[in-house]
């Protein structure tokens, strides 16, 4: 053995290491490729050896070669080998190599799952760290799913070094496995307040990254972030938070109001430019979100603009750049404040730095007005002439067009000027934006009717001088403008002064050198011109011109008939035959002009690019429904109740998703797509028409006779746009003079009430009238087009999947897969593994559900808002009174209100969070209280801020007089909110009708006196996890959940916590089955075999495993005896230990929280199938809502309706038994009347409820 090692080392002496490789490459500059290929051969040899050191060395070299661009994926398996070395040195090399060259389609990745899991739970923190770092680079959906739970455990690791890495990598996990977001989120949130700044920073980082893509789901975190912002001193964290607020404010303007002051303070106080800049940015975002008319914010705008001006004037180019960048954001909403700095911005246009010039250009876009457009464009045209690099010049060109065409040509007063500008731009050499100019020409000519005469004349000149445009510039795409020119001349040929001349120009032989798609337009429009010529010659006794024109066509068209381009050829031969026929008729003196012109009759209207998409699906048309009954296989579908379809709102534009047969539909859709793809007659989604012609191949392939023109191009007869500037000036002066006269007259009459829209400078925009009345034809849209905003969303965006409502309580099915099930259980148990497996197929279903949920949420929010507005008015009067009544107790109320205000409807609450936390938690008890504390802290946090700092903007601050009635009513509203909260605390599935609230409102009145104080108390933290067994090594707590999908299964979640300083391994969980209840064991194992717990526990760590049990009868509680055996391993010894326990299956654990509507509930009671029973609890000393919450939480009930001190509750067993409760309280006595279709079950459940309350 020793000999082998020595031999290995000696071998290594002759191997190249990384340094040798690098040196070798440097010494073989001439034949580098050859040298490297010999090196790769050596590496291949080295990888074949058994010695891991040699392999690691080889992999290390491969990593270097990968950087040089060599594909090393062939060594992927060797990389995995090195990764799994027990030595850190090699492991690190392996993981580095993997992170550099593994990706989703690397198939060996699936071999790494177990290795990575082992490394993650390694006692050596650097093994874990290296694994996390590596994983962050190559995590796949599978890895994410399999390892999510392990990583989540690491988020609570004792070492901050691991915690921060684990927190950070969760973002990648979320991206790859969106289902993990909700289960993991509570803990992530908790990490925002980690004692270690690094971990905190990582958590902020992750949440900011998530919130940036789907801000609305994170609004509820605003108070917490607010607290962090005011307390943190870490600039990195501050910058991230401030950026996050920038994304949140657009959704919640009230948040913005609150932010302005602390941000302004930061702006004044910070010395860090980066922080200052981000503050300014967010203040800008806030100002944008607030209505711009607010007078007290003009100071903030001024402050921002002023700070930005300082940045722009700074000699540091970086600051200058950023200043301009931020300025452009202000511009959108507060153009006036920016426009006053026009001098500065124009100055930046001359900067030597291209990035800065581009930014300045962006700003110009927003600074134009009717008044200064011509001036600014003139300046830009000068820059165009001067610009040397084509990229910058192209940028200028697009900017000029953008500036002019923005908001439907709003600022253009003189379209003749604009056409001239466009024509001038065609003279740019080497631009690749010919198509852009062309589309502008087309757009203007089509939509501005008044300009057609002028445009046609210009285009005719352009066609006449086409030789100047083509030639050497052929390749650069400027010839695209000829496409536009030809089309315009043809389409609007009636405006042409001399159509014959243009026709002649279009049929020149040189045209044949143009790209095919342009030739095609030439040919087609030549025909139009021909028709026009005939028309003009009609009635003319001398028919020679007409005949000559026909002859011209017949002479020239054959050139195009021979074209290699199919389109050109086809059109040309068609038209040629037509003309020949016409010629025949002409010779017979038949009048044909009418008929020929009829070929091209009819107005072409512009259609909006999104028009097609916006056509609504007619009512009653379900695009996904079968037209005929589908073949037999999908029987299940036929059973679906029709109600599902009927319920659907008829407005959906997209194909509707029916809840149930989604999977089936997806499959069918796939099949249909497949079919369509193979069907040549099916029109596939194609890019817009414009794209089609620019992408058309062939430009390069046409043989080109190059004409080099070094002389600057001046097209004779083309107007210079400059002269328009002068003309325009004169015209305006004249107009102004006239206006004055008119105004004098007007003053004598009445004032007209025309409001101003935009004004700039002394002369308001509206005063400038366009040179000629311009009718800008708007683009056509289909009738009753749907207004939708999500047009621009990219369906492939991975973040779309992360648009998940995080405030909703977690459902039972939403658990991170724990490896145990995979090994332990039969495939049919859906609550567990089945979930993960079917995740992919279920996803669309979830999504559609989510969409609905969100719609609902929005509605709720609106409702709430309006309510709050009302309340605010009343608020004014109430404050004093409340202070008297509530004292400090009142404060949390105000706060909780604020939180719920900020957080759209579902606020996460203490109980709920702690509940989530519990089943996720590894150290249940401490983490629960901690969580409760943090949440409480988070909620309380902004209070001092509201009281001290934000005096002007916190709403309820004005002095008020007291009025009894209003106090009362406002108090109700508060109560109502409280109740809403409460109900959520009870984990209720918040499908509550609003009138319930009103009910409870009405009744709540009497209980005000003693009710208020009571209800202020927050709910104590609750947990369903109870102790299973404990000794000095390990502690086990467990919770039992029913499985709705399978009436005979329950899932026992056990959290194992290592309490000692040793390593716990080889844990085996075994239970003595009873006749009624059995532990599900993997196939092939005997009925007495234990199940291996799929993880090991380092000291202080806890983890959760789940076990599936099958039960037959659920009406009776029962206990199962079991044993856990494990090995305690410390440095010098290892001992076998065991721990006995008793699993208590209560009847409660067979109940599943199921929401129930009050009407359904009433029907159920009326049906008479249920048998009653009742129980009386004495000496219950707790508020009613606590009582309800406890029943809900511990016994899986949901509140159906609550009126005063009386509530009806509902739950369902896994085998479908209905359990209904009517809970009444008076004093310390609580009476529960219950009904259930299974009396034994009911009796036991009631006993258990009694038990619960006797304990407290």
């Amino acid at each position: 053995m020793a000999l082998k090692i020595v031999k290995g080392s000696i071998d290594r002496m002759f191997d190249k290491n990384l340094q040798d490789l690098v040196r070798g490459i440097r010494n073989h500059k001439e034949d580098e490729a050859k040298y490297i290929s010999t090196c790769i051969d050596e590496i291949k040899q080295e990888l074949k050896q058994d010695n891991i050191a040699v392999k690691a060395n080889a992999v290390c070299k491969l990593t270097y070669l990968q950087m040089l661009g060599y594909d090393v994926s062939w060594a992927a398996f060797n990389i995995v080998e090195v990764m799994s070395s027990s030595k850190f040195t090699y492991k690190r090399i392996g993981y580095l190599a993997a992170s550099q060259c593994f990706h989703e389609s690397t198939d060996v990745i699936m071999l790494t799952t177990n290795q990575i899991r082992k490394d993650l739970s390694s006692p050596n923190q650097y093994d874990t760290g290296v694994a996390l770092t590596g994983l962050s680079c190559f995590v796949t959906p599978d890895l994410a799913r399999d390892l999510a739970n392990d990583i989540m455990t690491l988020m609570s690791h004792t070492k901050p070094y691991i915690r921060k890495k684990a927190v950070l990598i969760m973002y990648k996990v979320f991206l790859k496995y969106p289902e993990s977001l909700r289960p993991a989120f509570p803990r992530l949130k908790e990490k925002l307040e980690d004692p270690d700044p690094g971990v905190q920073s990582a958590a902020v980082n992750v949440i900011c990254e998530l919130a940036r893509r789907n801000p609305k789901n994170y609004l509820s975190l605003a108070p917490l972030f607010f607290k962090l912002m005011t307390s943190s001193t870490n600039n990195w964290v501050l910058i991230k938070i401030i950026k996050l607020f920038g994304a949140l404010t657009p959704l919640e303007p009230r948040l913005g109001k609150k932010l302005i002051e602390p941000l302004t303070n930061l702006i004044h106080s910070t010395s860090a430019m980066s922080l200052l800049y981000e503050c300014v940015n967010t203040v800008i975002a806030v100002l944008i979100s607030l209505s711009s008319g607010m007078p007290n914010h003009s100071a903030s705008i001024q402050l921002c603009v002023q700070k930005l001006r300082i940045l722009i004037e700074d000699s540091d180019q970086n600051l200058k750049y950023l200043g301009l960048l931020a300025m452009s954001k202000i511009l959108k909403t507060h153009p006036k404040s920016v426009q006053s700095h026009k001098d500065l911005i124009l100055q930046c246009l001359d900067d030597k730095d291209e990035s800065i010039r581009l930014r300045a250009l962006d700003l110009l876009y927003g600074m134009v007005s009717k008044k200064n457009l011509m001036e600014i464009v003139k300046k830009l045209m000068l820059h165009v002439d001067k610009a040397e690099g084509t990229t910058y010049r192209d940028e200028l060109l697009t900017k000029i067009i953008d500036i002019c065409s923005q908001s439907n040509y709003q600022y253009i007063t003189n379209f003749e000027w604009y056409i001239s500008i466009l024509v001038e731009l065609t003279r740019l050499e080497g631009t690749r934006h010919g198509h852009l100019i062309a589309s502008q020409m087309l757009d203007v000519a089509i939509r501005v009717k008044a300009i057609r005469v002028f445009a046609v004349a210009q285009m005719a000149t352009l066609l006449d001088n086409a030789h100047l445009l083509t030639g050497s510039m052929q390749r650069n795409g400027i010839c695209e403008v000829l496409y536009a020119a030809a089309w315009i001349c043809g389409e609007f040929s009636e405006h042409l002064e001399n159509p014959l001349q243009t026709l002649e120009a279009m049929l020149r032989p040189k045209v044949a050198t143009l790209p095919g798609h342009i030739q095609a337009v030439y040919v087609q429009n030549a025909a139009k011109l021909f028709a026009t010529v005939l028309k003009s010659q009609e009635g003319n006794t001398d028919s020679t011109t007409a005949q000559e024109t026909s002859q011209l066509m017949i002479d020239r068209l054959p050139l195009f008939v021979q074209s290699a381009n199919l389109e050109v050829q086809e059109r040309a031969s068609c038209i040629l035959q037509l003309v020949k026929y016409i010629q025949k008729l002409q010779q017979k003196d038949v009048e044909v002009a009418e008929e020929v012109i009829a070929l091209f009759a009819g107005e072409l209207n512009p259609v909006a690019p999104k028009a097609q998409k916006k056509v609504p699906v007619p009512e009653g048309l379900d695009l996904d429904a079968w037209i005929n009954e589908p073949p037999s296989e999908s029987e299940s579908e036929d059973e679906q109740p029709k109600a599902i379809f009927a319920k659907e709102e008829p407005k959906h534009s997209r194909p509707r998703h029916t809840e149930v047969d989604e999977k089936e539909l997806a499959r069918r859709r796939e099949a249909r797509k497949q079919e369509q793809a193979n069907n040549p007659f099916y029109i596939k989604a194609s890019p817009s028409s414009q794209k089609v012609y620019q992408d058309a191949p062939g430009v390069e392939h046409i043989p080109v006779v190059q004409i080099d023109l070094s002389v600057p191009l001046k097209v004779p007869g083309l107007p210079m746009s400059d002269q328009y500037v002068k003309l325009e000036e004169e015209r305006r002066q004249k107009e102004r003079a006239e206006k004055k006269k008119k105004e004098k007259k007007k003053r004598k009459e009445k004032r007209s009430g025309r409001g101003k829209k935009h004004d700039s400078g002394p002369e308001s925009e509206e005063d400038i009238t366009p040179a000629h009345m311009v009718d800008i034809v708007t683009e056509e849209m289909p009738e009753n087009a749907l207004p939708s905003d999500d047009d621009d969303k990219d369906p492939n965006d991975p973040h779309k999947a992360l648009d998940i409502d995080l405030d909703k309580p977690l459902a039972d099915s939403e658990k991170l897969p724990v490896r145990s099930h995979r090994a332990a259980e039969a495939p049919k148990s859906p609550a567990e593994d089945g979930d993960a497996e079917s995740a992919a197929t279920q996803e669309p279903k979830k999504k559609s559900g989510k969409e609905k949920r969100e719609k609902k949420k929005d509605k709720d929010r609106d409702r709430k808002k309006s309510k709050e507005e009302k309340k605010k008015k009343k608020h004014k009067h109430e404050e004093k009174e409340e202070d008297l009544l509530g004292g400090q107790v009142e404060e949390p109320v105000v706060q909780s209100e604020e939180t719920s205000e900020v957080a759209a409807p579902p606020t996460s609450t203490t109980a709920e969070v702690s509940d989530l936390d519990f089943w996720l938690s590894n150290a249940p008890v401490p983490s629960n209280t901690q969580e409760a504390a943090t949440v409480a802290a988070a909620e309380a946090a902004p209070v001092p801020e509201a009281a001290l700092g934000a005096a002007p903007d916190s709403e309820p601050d004005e002095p008020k007089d007291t009025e009894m009635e209003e106090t009362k009513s406002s108090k109700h509203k508060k109560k109502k909110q409280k109740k809403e909260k409460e109900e959520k605390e009870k984990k209720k599935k918040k499908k509550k009708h609003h009138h319930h609230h009103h009910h409870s409102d009405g009744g709540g009145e009497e209980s005000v006196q003693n009710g208020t104080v009571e209800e202020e108390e927050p709910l104590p933290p609750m947990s369903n996890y109870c102790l299973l067994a404990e000794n000095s090594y390990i502690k086990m707590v467990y919770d039992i959940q029913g499985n709705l999908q399978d009436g005979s299964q329950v899932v026992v979640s056990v959290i194992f916590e290592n309490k000692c300083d040793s390593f716990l391994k080889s844990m085996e969980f075994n239970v003595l089955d009873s006749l009624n209840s059995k532990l599900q064991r993997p196939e092939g194992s005997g009925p007495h075999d234990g199940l291996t717990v799929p993880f090991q526990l380092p000291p202080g760590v806890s983890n959760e495993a789940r076990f599936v049990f099958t039960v037959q009868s659920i009406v009776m509680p029962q206990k199962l005896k079991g044993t856990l055996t494990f090995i305690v391993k410390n440095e010098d010894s290892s001992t076998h230990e065991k721990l006995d326990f008793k699993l208590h299956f209560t009847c409660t654990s067979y109940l599943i929280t199921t929401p129930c509507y009050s009407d359904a509930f009433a029907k159920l009671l009326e049906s008479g199938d249920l048998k009653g029973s009742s129980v009386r609890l004495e000496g219950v000393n707790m508020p009613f809502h606590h009582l309800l919450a406890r029943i809900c939480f511990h016994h899986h009930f949901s509140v159906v309706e609550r009126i005063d001190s009386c509530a009806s509750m509902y739950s369902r067993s896994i085998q479908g038994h209905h359990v209904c409760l009517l809970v009444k309280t008076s004093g310390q006595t609580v009476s529960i009347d219950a009904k259930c279709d299974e009396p034994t079950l009911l009796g036991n459940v009631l006993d258990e409820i009694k038990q619960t309350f006797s304990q407290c």
Partner: protein
Amino acid sequence: MIKAILIFNNHGKPRLSKFYEHYTEDTEQQIIRETFHLVSKRDENVCNFLEGGMLIGGSDYKLIYRHYATLYFVFCVDSSESELGILDLIQVFVETLDKCFENVCELDLIFHVDKVHNILAEMVMGGMVLETNMNEIITQVDAQNKMEKSEAGIAGAPARACISCKEHEPPGNAQKHQHW
């Protein structure tokens, strides 16, 4: 998010490339070439931000770079990162390298690209900033190097001797003089 971190010299030779998204080797090289092309033609006294890399990112992404002596450090980031913050981060990175290599120069990066990767891994993880405190980064890097040394132990002794004797010989045509 950081999409890529590139280090190359004045001639465009890559010294380190770290992509936080997968590209094929060819695309990676193309990106490096393109980035070098964009960055190298800029004057010294212009701003350190650059838009319009065609291959990487898109409109949301920016190149933020610094030029030290013979090397360019380029970070490709999206709009969630603070521009000035990243500039600071590059500075931290370089200072950390300087501490770890004791007066770092291009040769250190050429011969020890694996170490540079390890240092970077303590700063940026999966495209997100992990740590900005230089002392913390150095502590972690040192601790790991120590572990590596202790692991080498007896079995590694001959190999180490071999490596160390290799390192004593003057490194080829290289000169270690360009300090920054």
